[in-house]
């Protein structure tokens, strides 16, 4: 371990204060202040945080490797000898994440000023966006698990509120419920993981939830506990980061405003799970079995989501599945021990995926909210800037050599191969091919071919205003060049981001240059063949996809219907829970069962309308009977106890 120093840096608090002020202002004064001031305040809050992050980065780079900046807000909870401070810690890992969150966040806030230009509820929208930025900063800067959990819950809440921003009630009732249930399952995993880890340390006399301290003393934790805690945390990560089995909420989340999808459901929040696993890397490295699970879930999710993305026609849904797939890559990297590569992929993914969403938003903006790709096509001349920037992003996500996605994905696949996960590496390569296919399918369907835009919308087709296109251009530049901070070791200036992160996330094995080159070549070839296939299908011979779909029949239907997983979950989880609540407890136990007890089985058997009429409760005597049954149970317990012990 490299010996760094920890330096007090109070300006970190300011980084949280700025968005917090933005929230308060927008929530309570926003409507009165008017649109222009709201725009300025909310963007300034995030940009200010970004500038502070740059300043902090400068300070950090001046310190020896492995150092960190810290600031303490106040001491929060005491349980036994356990003291939990609300403290901030700005080390290399947090630095990268903070820059991504505030940097990409700034760009998306700027874009939102244009995108939400007509919405009457802009103040509320920006209040939520600033609150989200605040929570996300807490999540990445928190120096202990509990503080991180505050941010974790906060981003979840904001995501929920922002998804709901444009929902109509009926949809929300169903989708919101699903998103919520699924996410809470993950959160329960996280919370139980915290308890497990805290208890494990406490049993060895160490009372802490602080990352640095836990990392130092991780050897105190037995591998069984580490496995359990690791799996629980990973369950939390699958919920937040939309991995199998808890990914189902993300595609539904796409009904929110597009900047929200870009910020929350692509660039930042959904990668929080990866960040958490990287942050707890010291825990995962204790247990190879957990690492295997992480890697396998990641690779399988990547592949699975890519296949679903092939058959979707809603542009944002394709992007949602592509996000799930890319995060799968990140977990593959993390599971293979290459936490640095996973974080690197978070960075590049934030650039190109935010760009893709914002580009899609620009298209939708031009088409009056149309999301169905079967009603797009031939847009490249009408939307030149959007087209050009989307092309860069699509090339980047396809991992064409030289674009940002290439470097990070390459590192991940190399790590998977080197660590001996040959099957998962193979799956990753196939997925790379699929990525090329479905992304260029999206690209060609949108911008090339015959225009399928509804005639009524054609005259009003226009490129988006500058406040929206400038962010696109900035992101395009980043997608193009952002990967160059992590070149393969030994090439030019080498893997700068990897070296920067190494003291925090550790080192991975690498392979000799020639072998690495061969691995890259295979992956790139797969990606490019996907690209070519997409060209053939959607530009050169547009009739082909129909025939292919007809030919594959059931498989295509399964893909289109997302393997029917939503239906399965609804059947297995959501409905039983509500059935239990609604029918079992409410109607049956409270009334039916007791009614049966009172009047004998005959009454219950009378059935029909009579039974329904008789299955009335609110009857005070049923309550008394419940009470009596409870009382008898308690008495029976005591009798039993006294017989056993008396």
């Amino acid at each position, binding site marked *: 371990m490299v010996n760094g120093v920890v330096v007090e840096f109070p300006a970190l608090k300011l980084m949280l204060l700025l968005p917090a002020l933005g929230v308060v202002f927008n929530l309570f004064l926003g409507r009165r202040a008017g649109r222009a001031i709201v725009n300025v305040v909310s963007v300034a809050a995030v940009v200010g945080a970004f500038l502070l992050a740059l300043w902090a980065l400068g300070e950090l780079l001046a310190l020896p490797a492995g150092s960190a900046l810290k600031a303490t807000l106040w001491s929060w909870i005491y349980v036994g000898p356990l003291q939990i401070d609300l403290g901030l810690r700005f080390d290399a890992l947090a630095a990268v994440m903070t820059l991504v969150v505030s940097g990409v966040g700034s760009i998306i806030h700027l874009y939102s000023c244009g995108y939400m230009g007509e919405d009457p509820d802009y103040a509320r929208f920006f209040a939520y966006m600033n609150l989200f930025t605040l929570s996300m900063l807490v999540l990445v800067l928190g120096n202990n698990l509990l503080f991180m959990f505050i941010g974790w819950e906060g981003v979840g809440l904001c995501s*929920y509120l922002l998804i709901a921003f444009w929902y109509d009630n009926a949809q929300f009732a169903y989708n919101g419920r699903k998103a919520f249930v699924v996410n809470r399952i993950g959160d329960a995993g996280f919370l139980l993981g915290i308890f497990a880890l805290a208890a494990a340390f406490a049993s060895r006399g160490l009372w802490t939830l602080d990352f640095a301290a836990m990392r130092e003393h991780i050897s105190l934790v037995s591998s069984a506990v580490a496995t359990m805690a690791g799996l629980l945390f990973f369950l939390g990560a699958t919920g937040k980061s939309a991995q199998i089995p808890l990914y189902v909420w993300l595609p539904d989340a796409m009904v929110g405003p597009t900047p929200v999808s870009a910020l929350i459901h692509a660039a930042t929040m959904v990668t929080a799970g990866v960040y958490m696993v990287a942050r707890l890397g010291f825990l995962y490295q204790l247990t190879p079995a957990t690492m295997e699970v992480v890697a396998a879930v990641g690779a399988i999710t990547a592949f699975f989501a890519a296949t679903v993305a092939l058959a979707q026609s809603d542009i944002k849904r394709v992007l949602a599945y592509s996000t799930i797939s890319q995060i799968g890559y990140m977990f593959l990297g993390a599971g293979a021990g290459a936490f640095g590569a996973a974080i690197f992929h978070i960075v590049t993914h934030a650039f190109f995926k935010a760009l893709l969403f914002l580009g899609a938003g620009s298209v939708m903006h031009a088409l009056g909210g149309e999301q169905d790709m079967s009603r797009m096509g031939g847009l490249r001349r009408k939307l030149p800037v959007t087209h050009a920037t989307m092309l860069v992003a699509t090339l980047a996500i396809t991992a064409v050599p030289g674009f940002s996605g290439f470097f990070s994905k390459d590192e991940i696949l190399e790590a998977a191969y080197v660590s001996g996960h040959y099957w998962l590496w193979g799956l990753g390569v196939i997925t790379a091919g699929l990525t090329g296919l479905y992304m260029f399918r999206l690209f060609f369907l949108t911008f090339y071919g015959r225009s399928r835009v509804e005639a009524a919308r054609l005259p009003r087709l226009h490129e988006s205003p500058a406040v929206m296109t400038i962010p696109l251009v900035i992101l395009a530049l980043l997608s193009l060049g952002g990967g160059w901070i992590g070149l393969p070791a030994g090439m030019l200036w080498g893997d700068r981001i990897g070296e920067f992160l190494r003291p925090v996330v550790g080192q991975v094995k690498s392979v000799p240059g020639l072998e690495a080159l061969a691995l890259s070549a295979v992956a790139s070839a797969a990606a490019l063949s996907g690209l070519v296939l997409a060209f053939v299908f959607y530009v050169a011979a547009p009739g082909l996809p129909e025939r292919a779909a007809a030919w594959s029949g059931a498989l295509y239907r399964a893909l289109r219907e997302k393997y029917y997983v939503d239906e399965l979950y609804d059947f297995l989880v959501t409905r039983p829970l509500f059935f239990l609540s609604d029918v079992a407890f409410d109607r049956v136990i409270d009334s039916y069962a007791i009614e049966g007890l009172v009047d004998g089985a005959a009454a219950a058997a009378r059935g029909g309308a009579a039974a329904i009429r008789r299955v009335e409760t609110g009857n005070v005597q049923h309550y008394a009977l419940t009470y009596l049954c409870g009382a008898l149970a308690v008495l029976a317990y005591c009798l039993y106890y006294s017989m056993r012990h008396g």
Partner: protein
Amino acid sequence: MISGTIGAALDASWRPVLAPAVVAITAMAVMLVGSRLGEEDSEGLGWLTFSGLALAALCAFAAVGRHAPAFAGALIVDDYTAFFYCLIAVCAAMVVLLSLDYVPALELPSTEYYALLLSATVGMMLLAAAGDLIIIFLGLETMSISVYVMAAIARRDPRSSEAGLKYFLLGAFSTGFLLYGIALLYGATGSIKLEAISRALQSSALAASPLVLLGLAMMLIGFGFKVAAVPFHAWTPDAYEGAPTPVTALMAVGVKSAAFAGFLRLLLVYLPALHAQWGGALWVLAALTMSVGNLVALAQNNVKRMLAYSAIAHAGYILVGMTAAGGAAGAAVLYYLLGYAFANLGAFAVLVAVERVEQPGTTLADLGGLAKGQPMLAAAMALFMLSLMGLPPLAGFVGKFYVFSAALQAGYVWLVVLAALNSVISTYYYARVIVAMYVNEGAERKLRARRPGLSVALAVAIAATIIIGVDPRPYVEMAAGAYASAAGIARSGVRAAFLAH
């Protein structure tokens, strides 16, 4: 000479009951003044009640810093008592603030309303201070009988009288069980003083006697009713729904705190020798209470009814803490009650503000679009829901964290896992309220002009919910000190188990 004797008697024995005495005198004053004034000046009566309660909250401090039996052991005066005197007085005062414009709006008989509120408060305080079985019974009944009538006080609303009647019938029914338990415990140990009972039960032969066990079981059943533990909970939703909203707030907060105060003192402080006996029963009650409360709450559309099931669920979490027993658990429960009280009071305050006169009872649909029309009210309600949900860093989360950690330290791993899963389920129905306010559209509604009292109550609840959660240390110290004082262990003893130094 005589005045000297009386003076000494006052000093020796009145100081500990200063707070309930002030409340009782205020109650009589309200009866006398109110019956003279007639119904026009209900607000004046409200402020009279409020000032009496505020004075009582101050007088509560007269009990701080001593641990002494008073009235020959009938009452116990210590920091624990002072803590609950204060909490109960504050809760009741907040309820008065909620009632100020509610009582005239619904044309409730204000003299009776405030007098009953005060006598219920006296009962709660006595229950919290009870040092023998008679006072437990008297406190419980003074509180309950007053609240029965308060629940039924809206005579024009048939649901109100139904709520009162149901609450009364089941309450009296459960009183029978509690009383039987008291009789058996008295018969087995030969004393009604808790201190003496505790000493008698040190002998293991007596502790295992069936009479003691039966008495204990009956008392569990009786208290189980008051704290709304499943399966003794069935009255809760109906009573909460039908009662006028401020009365519901009193039931959810005051009655519950007082009942837990008595229950906790009885079990954790005086019957720890029987923990092996009651621990198991409480385990099951806690598990059932959490699960049923949360699951049934999912299906509710009436907000008051939903809050009733939520109150049941929270009783379950508190029972988890009680199951764990010990200093850390006792302090955690006290802290939990503090956070729970303010979040709930706040939620009911919002309901009072939103409720329509012509149609009391608020459904989720009624909350639709509240965020647009009343952003402050909606934000406040969201805050309270988040705290009840247990979202950090609000009071609800910290309370749960303490209670669950105490249970974990005591080795109740599965109970904590169940509790964690339950709090996951609970987020759903709390979130529904937020969604209703922020997402759903609703018809523009004319609200009653809000009087300053209600705004003050809201502000206090908001501030408390945030402050108690964000900076819990002073409140945790207070809770730990209170429990330590009751348990007669050195304050540092509980600290060591609970607080870092």
